């Protein structure tokens, strides 16, 4: 399990670096919104972790986003911890099929961005000064579903393979 946690954390670090290099203003940002790769990776990996490490992976991912982004420390950490917690609560439903996973990723994305916006506003960040803020809550969710189509099966395959190797050993 520890190796899986390490693998999940490694994926999260790669995702944070790719997020800041690939997406956002001046990079890939169709219709002025960009996906949240880190969130997709958190959702894809914490499904295969024990609850406590899963929450810590979510928290660490958010903290890294805060450290490399412009928001106060702890805002994304809060949002991503909630994402990890909600993913744990509904992970059994993921076996229902890809449509359920897509709906789940979309709902978690919207919830995370909304939570981040509300918390940020409470801490004086004025996120809601942007007239297009509603679009920034919803459109990334749609992009995340597209990203999840690639990331979730990949993470599933790798994490299951690692689990299988562990049981054989």
């Amino acid at each position, binding site marked *: 399990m520890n190796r899986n946690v390490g693998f999940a954390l490694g994926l999260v670090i790669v995702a944070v670096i790719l997020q800041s290099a690939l997406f956002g*203003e001046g990079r890939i940002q169709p219709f002025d919104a960009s996906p949240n790769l880190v969130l997709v990776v958190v959702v894809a990996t914490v499904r295969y972790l024990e*609850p406590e490490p899963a929450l810590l992976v979510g928290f660490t991912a958010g903290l890294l986003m805060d450290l*490399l982004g*412009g928001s106060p420390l*702890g805002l994304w950490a809060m949002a991503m911890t909630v994402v990890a917690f909600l993913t744990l609560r509904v992970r059994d439903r993921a076996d229902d099929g890809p449509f359920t996973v897509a709906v789940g990723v979309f709902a978690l994305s919207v919830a995370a961005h909304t939570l981040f*916006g509300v918390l940020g506003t409470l801490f004086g960040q004025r996120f809601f*000064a942007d007239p297009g803020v509603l679009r920034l809550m919803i459109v*990334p969710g749609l992009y995340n579903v597209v990203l999840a189509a690639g990331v979730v099966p990949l993470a599933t395959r790798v994490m299951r393979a690692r689990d299988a190797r562990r049981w054989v050993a």
Partner: protein
Amino acid sequence: MLPSRRFERSTGLFVLLLVTSFLVTTFDVRADGAGVGDTLREGAQALFAPVQRLADSLTRPIVGFIDGVSNIAGLREENDRLAERVRGLEQEQAEVLSLQTQLDELRKINDLAPPDELDAVTARIFSNGVSDLDHIRWIDRGTDDGILVGQAVIDEAGLIGRVDFVADDSARIRLVSDPRLGVGVRDLATNEVGWVEGQGGDFLTLKMFNAVEPVHEGDLLVTDGTRFPPGITVGTVRETASAEVGFQLISSVVPAVNLSEADFVKVIVGWSPLDATQPVDEEQPARGNPLIIEQ
């Protein structure tokens, strides 16, 4: 279904992490750019900046390709717009030549030295924020190159933003589009002063508290020299507006800089807001525009 004891433990950890995050945010906001939060950011930058630069150099061609493909449809429209703009500029150029002659004469009359060239450090943007709600850029210059918090960042078109965090070899710029950044501006057409704030989107908000004259669409706004060096182009007024009695004037502004296309930037390291209030010494004039200092 998880065993109840396990679930209770994870719920406890969940609450603990939320409380920790909440406290961390509170301390970071209260510290306002100082304290443990910034130490952690410096550490993270020292660790991740080299990797981010590598990722930036690897992904730049991909981003450029995708950007190019997505822009093909808009190129014809852009071409027409630019042709129209060139015609307008040719007209303006003739007017500017006339004004330049007048300015030269005025300079001779007032015996004013031209403003000193401000020292600047050229830097390249290597990273964005991590979400659409982040209006920041990371540049590859830091304290080692003389960058300090509060310095203005410009490109050839005008003001990009302000340095709000510095590590040894990188710095974070808060863009003019960020709702938390305010810029004191002067309307060149009326000489009225006001305040421009980001909205997070494509346009900025202009507020003038004591304006007598209205602002007109197309008026050029430049920094007034309070927190940024004077005379830097900020943008143009988007809508004509006037102040009603007892109310402030509010309008919107098109930023001079296309923030999504900014790549190389200049950080002005040779100017401090304190310079704006220093008396002009004839032997050693203060940096900045002497016209503004005298006000």
